[in-house]
C-alpha cells in the first residue's frame, strides 16, 4: 500500500506531493491537470522496473516522427520518451523522480545521459530503483535513445498484464485481454463473484462464459434458454466486467482506472464503489481511479453513509495545475460536500 507519493519532473508535474493515500483513491481535476499522469506515476513506481517505463507512452501512442524508411518500419515499436519528462524536454540532464512511501517504499529515477564511448550524439535513458532517502540503488537499467529521439521498449510485451499492476483505460475494453483474465478465474470460487458483480447492472444474469474462437462473452439469463451475447445487453456490462476482472488480476497489487465512470449509469455507482472497496480490501488491492463525474463523487459519499465502515478506506484528491500538492477530502468531508452541494472537483 502506498501512503504517500512524490512526483518530480514527470510529465506535467514539476513537483507534486500526494497524501494521504488510502485503500481506494479517486483523482478529480480539470482537463490536463494531470490525473492520468498521476496514475502513470503510480504504475511506474509500482512496477519498479524499466519495463514499466514505456507503458504509458505506448498507451498514449507517443511515437517518434520517422525520418527514414527503416524507422518508419519500426515506428510502431518505438516510443518517444520525451513526453515522460516535464516540459517534453529530452536532453542530457533531463530527469524525473517518483517516490512512494508506505508498505511499498520505492524510489524510481529516470535520467537522460550521454553515452561517452560512442560520441556525443548518442544518449541513453537510465533507470534506477532504490528506497526513498537512501543512496543505495537496487536496480539499474538503461535503454539507448536513437538519433531521432526514440527508444524501443524492452522486449517483454508492454501491454502484457502485469501480475501486480493493472491499468484500465477509458476506451472500450480489450476483449482479448479480458478473455485471458477471465480464464484465470474460471472454475475458481471467484468465477461466481464476477457473475455476482455483473448482477449490479443486470440482476437476471446467472452465468458468464467466454465462448468460441473470438472469446465472445455470453451470459445465461434467468428464463432464457440460450446464451445471450454480453454486448447485446449494453456497453455498461462490458465496462463493469473489465473493472471486475482487472480488480481480481491486481490481487496483492495495484489497480489503476482511468475515467472509472465510463459507460456506467449513475444509479449503479454506489454498488460499483461497494464492490470495489470490499473486493480491494479482501484481495489487498490498492485502487487509484480518475473521474470527471459528479455522480461518481457523490456515489462515494453515499457509500460512506450506507456503509460507515468504508470511511477509512476512501480518499478523494483534486489535482490542480501547477500546484505542489493535491487537495484531499476524507469520506466525511465528501459527505458534507454532497449534503450541502459544495463542489470538490
Amino acid at each position, binding site marked *: 500500500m502506498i501512503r504517500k507519493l512524490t512526483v518530480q519532473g514527470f510529465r506535467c508535474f514539476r513537483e507534486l506531493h500526494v497524501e494521504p493515500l488510502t485503500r481506494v483513491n479517486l483523482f478529480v481535476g480539470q482537463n490536463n491537470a494531470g490525473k492520468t499522469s498521476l496514475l502513470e506515476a503510480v504504475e511506474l513506481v509500482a512496477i519498479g522496473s524499466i519495463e514499466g517505463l514505456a507503458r504509458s507512452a505506448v498507451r498514449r501512442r507517443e511515437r517518434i516522427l520517422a525520418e527514414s524508411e527503416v524507422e518508419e518500419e519500426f515506428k510502431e515499436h518505438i516510443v518517444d520518451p520525451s513526453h515522460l519528462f516535464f516540459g517534453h524536454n529530452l536532453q542530457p540532464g533531463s530527469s524525473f523522480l517518483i517516490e512512494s512511501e508506505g508498505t511499498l517504499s520505492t524510489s524510481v529515477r529516470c535520467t537522460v545521459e550521454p553515452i561517452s564511448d560512442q560520441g556525443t550524439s548518442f544518449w541513453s535513458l537510465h533507470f534506477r530503483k532504490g528506497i526513498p532517502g537512501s543512496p543505495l540503488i537496487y536496480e539499474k537499467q538503461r535503454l539507448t535513445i536513437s538519433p531521432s529521439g526514440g527508444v524501443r521498449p524492452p522486449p517483454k510485451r508492454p501491454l502484457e498484464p502485469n501480475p501486480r499492476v493493472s491499468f484500465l483505460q477509458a476506451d472500450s475494453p480489450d476483449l482479448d485481454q479480458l478473455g485471458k483474465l477471465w480464464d484465470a478465474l474460471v472454475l475458481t470460487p471467484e468465477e461466481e463473484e464476477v457473475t455476482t458483480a455483473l448482477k449490479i447492472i443486470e440482476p437476471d444474469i446467472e452465468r458468464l462464459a467466454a465462448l468460441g474462437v473470438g472469446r465472445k462473452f455470453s451470459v445465461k439469463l434467468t428464463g432464457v434458454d440460450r446464451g445471450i451475447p454480453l454486448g447485446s445487453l449494453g456497453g455498461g456490462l462490458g465496462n463493469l466486467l473489465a473493472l471486475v476482472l482487472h480488480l481480481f488480476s491486481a490481487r496483492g497489487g495495484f489497480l489503476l482506472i482511468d475515467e472509472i465512470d465510463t459507460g456506467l449509469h449513475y444509479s449503479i455507482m454506489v454498488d460499483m464503489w461497494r464492490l470495489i472497496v470490499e473486493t480491494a480490501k479482501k484481495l489487498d488491492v490498492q485502487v487509484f481511479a480518475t473521474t470527471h463525474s459528479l455522480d461518481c463523487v457523490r456515489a462515494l459519499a453515499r457509500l460512506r453513509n450506507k456503509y460507515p465502515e468504508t470511511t477509512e478506506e476512501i480518499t478523494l484528491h483534486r489535482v*490542480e495545475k501547477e500546484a505542489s500538492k493535491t487537495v484531499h477530502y476524507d469520506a466525511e*468531508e465528501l459527505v*458534507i*460536500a454532497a449534503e*450541502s*452541494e*459544495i*463542489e*470538490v472537483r
Partner: protein
Amino acid sequence: MAAPPKESPYRLLVEGPDDLHSVIHLMARHGFDWDDESRARPFISPTGGVEQLLRIFPVALKGPYQRIGIVLDANSRLADRWAQIRGRANRADVALPESPGSEGTIVEGRQPESRVGIWLMPDNSSPGTLESFLSGLVPPDHPAWAYAGEATTEARKRGARCLEKDHLKSTLHTWLAWQEEPGLPFGTALRTGVFETESETARRFVAWFNRLFVES
C-alpha cells in the same frame, strides 16, 4: 429571471432562510442585480444553523471556488465565535487575523486570486445576531418600536414563553406584526421598504459584500 446557479464559482454560506432572504433583498435594494447572468454571483446556501455552517466552511474552503463568504451570528461571545471560525479556516490552510475586521474580514483564499470573506452579525464587533442587524434598520422614532419592546417585556411577565435572551428577536417580530401588512418575513420587509436599507452597519455590510463578490 435567473438566480445564481449552484455551480457558481462564488459561494456564500449563511445560517438559515432568514439570513438568505435578508442578504438577497438588502443587496438588491443596494443595486445588486441577482439576475445579471453576465457576471458571477454568489450562490447562497442556508446551512441549517451555525454548527452546520462551521462544519461545511472548511470543506467549502478546499473547493475550487474563487470567492467564498460566510455570514453568521456572533451571538453572546464574539471572541469565541471568531476562534472557532479561525480554527476551521486553519484546517483548510486559510489563515485568518487574530480578530475580525470591523469592516468585515476578507483574506486571500487557497486558490490563486481567490478571496474568503467573513461577516459576523451584527457588526463584527458587538455580540448579537441577524435580528440585531435588522433592528438597526427599523425607521428611527417609529412610533411602535419602543412599544413593541415594552409589549414583549410585558408579555413575558404575563407568562409568554419567549426567553429573555431572545428579547430583540421577539420585539422585531412583534413590530413586524403591527405593519400595514402584518407579519412579513425579513426579506420581504426589506424588499417592500418596511425596513430602511441605510444604516452605518448596513452600509459597511454592503461594502464588504461588494469587495468580496463584485470588485474584480
